[in-house]
């Protein structure tokens, strides 16, 4: 029995279902909130005003901390229905007020930026993709693995409060191709 009971997480369930549908194996997973103990997501240095990037960093870190796999090529796929809508809304407000936008907003204006943070922190050298659908994201991961662009893929889904009702949420899975997958014949290399 854990001290804090786990909480239901539809985003994580969706990632697992999409992985199965794409023929991938989930080797580990994490979510935010994962238990009742998860209150405010920890801040992430260099990223301001929005939970988007801190959520991505936190759920990814929960998977990657202590992981053995430094010799593997890991792709990162971020799935988000709207992108960082919190930051986009703030930038629009600055622009409409005729004010200068805080420079840090520039650096977090695309979901790639936090992926760059993750990749540097955890040495993830595989391709980077950000797409809007969970199934699409998992299909991207499956193709990258099938074509040996990556050995595995970290797929992170972010659901900000605006799309998920009561609170900001995120989930992540680390997926690999099935070991017994029959790889179609190939040309070139």
């Amino acid at each position, binding site marked *: 029995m854990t001290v804090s009971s786990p909480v239901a997480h539809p985003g994580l369930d969706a990632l697992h279902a999409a992985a199965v549908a794409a023929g991938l194996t989930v*080797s580990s997973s994490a979510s935010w909130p994962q238990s009742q103990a998860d209150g405010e997501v920890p801040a992430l240095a260099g990223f301001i005003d929005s939970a988007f990037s801190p959520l991505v960093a936190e759920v990814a870190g929960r998977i990657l901390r202590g992981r053995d796999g430094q010799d593997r090529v890991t792709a990162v796929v971020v799935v988000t*229905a709207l*992108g960082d809508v919190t930051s*986009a809304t703030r930038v629009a407000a600055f622009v409409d007020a005729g004010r200068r936008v805080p420079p840090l907003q520039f650096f977090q204006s695309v979901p790639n930026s936090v992926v760059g943070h993750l990749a540097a922190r955890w040495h*993830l*050298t595989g*391709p980077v993709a950000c797409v*809007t659908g969970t199934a699409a994201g998992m299909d991207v991961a499956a193709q990258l693995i099938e074509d040996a662009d990556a050995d595995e893929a970290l797929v992170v889904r972010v659901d900000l409060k605006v799309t998920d009702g009561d609170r900001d949420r995120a989930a992540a899975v680390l997926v690999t191709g099935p070991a017994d997958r029959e790889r179609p014949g190939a040309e070139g290399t």
Partner: protein
Amino acid sequence: MTDGPSVAAATVPARRGTGTVVVTGAAVLSAYGRGSDALLSGVLSGRPAFAPVDRFDVGARRVGVAATMPGSPDLRTELTRVVREACDEAGLSSSDRDRSPLFVAVHCHPELARAAEVDQPSLGPEAFARAVAHASGLAQQGIRCYISACVAASTAIADASAIIARGHADRVVVAGGYLVESDQFALFDAGRVLADDGQVRPFSAGRRGLLLGDGVGAVVVESAEFARARQAVPLARMAGWGRTGDAYHPCQPHPAGYGLARAVTAALQRAGIRPENLGYVNAHGSGTGQSDAAETNALRRCLGDAIATVPVSSTKSLHGQALEASGVLELIVTMLAARKGNLPVNAGFLGADDGCRLNLVLGDALAATPEYAMSLNAAFGGANTALVIGLP
């Protein structure tokens, strides 16, 4: 079950499927106007399309220049138009279109940031893409939206090529769109990356940054076998593709260009060619100090001796940086130029930078008929893509 040692040793993963992938249709909008002819004549003129921005107020900005079409074109309208035109050029019937999925590269739904919170959930890029697909007569299934910054469109093209080569799809229409608007302009201005001398000077001494530009483009990517069955004439082959990550920094490229070099190498390997087979490189060439030097290092690392002879230019010096649409805009530029037999100049060049020694196309467009040409893109997050096309 995960990979065991014996399985990993026995099963060397294949890098691509066996299918040949072709581009059978393309359509585009740029600051030079609507259509491929306008774009090609614009870039071959060597005259950059940059001018003071009058589409929105730039009074509070450090820089007030971009490459824009007149007026305020509507992104959904223009995306729909290029998708239709690309499908027309490919000779797709209405039933062909109805079976073709759309991959779209955009920053976000144009109305998202100023919508009421209650309306925002319905204003995702996917709803936007679905409207474009519907208006274009494309399938409502299989739609993907890529929002991976400046590699969004090139990643979509690479992914489309990969699944078609594997036989997982017969055809994908890939479109990308960015029309210069106030929010991204303000962000790039705040990041102090816009060129305050009003010109983009890739790989040049004295380069001062990038400038944004309009870009909306679409390509029909399909199986050569299916194209042949329709008696469609390919514009080019998608010979190779590569995408990698730098694992270096949230928004700076690796100075040594390791990630981009791996993307280029993967693309060349998939194409089954050597660096000296490349007849043109349309570089990422953003015009910023760090990025151009890193890209040069990447090319030196993976092209070897061919670096001295392969013509290189960044057409961002002419049509500007089209963000999420860059990959499709620049692939179309590459394809049009190679087919025409004229390679566009690397405009804005003031003088050599020792950190950016490349065989740049300078002065006038270069007459050449490359058998293979490559388009490069890089983005925040250390994301890199390389697309290699083969010409008939």
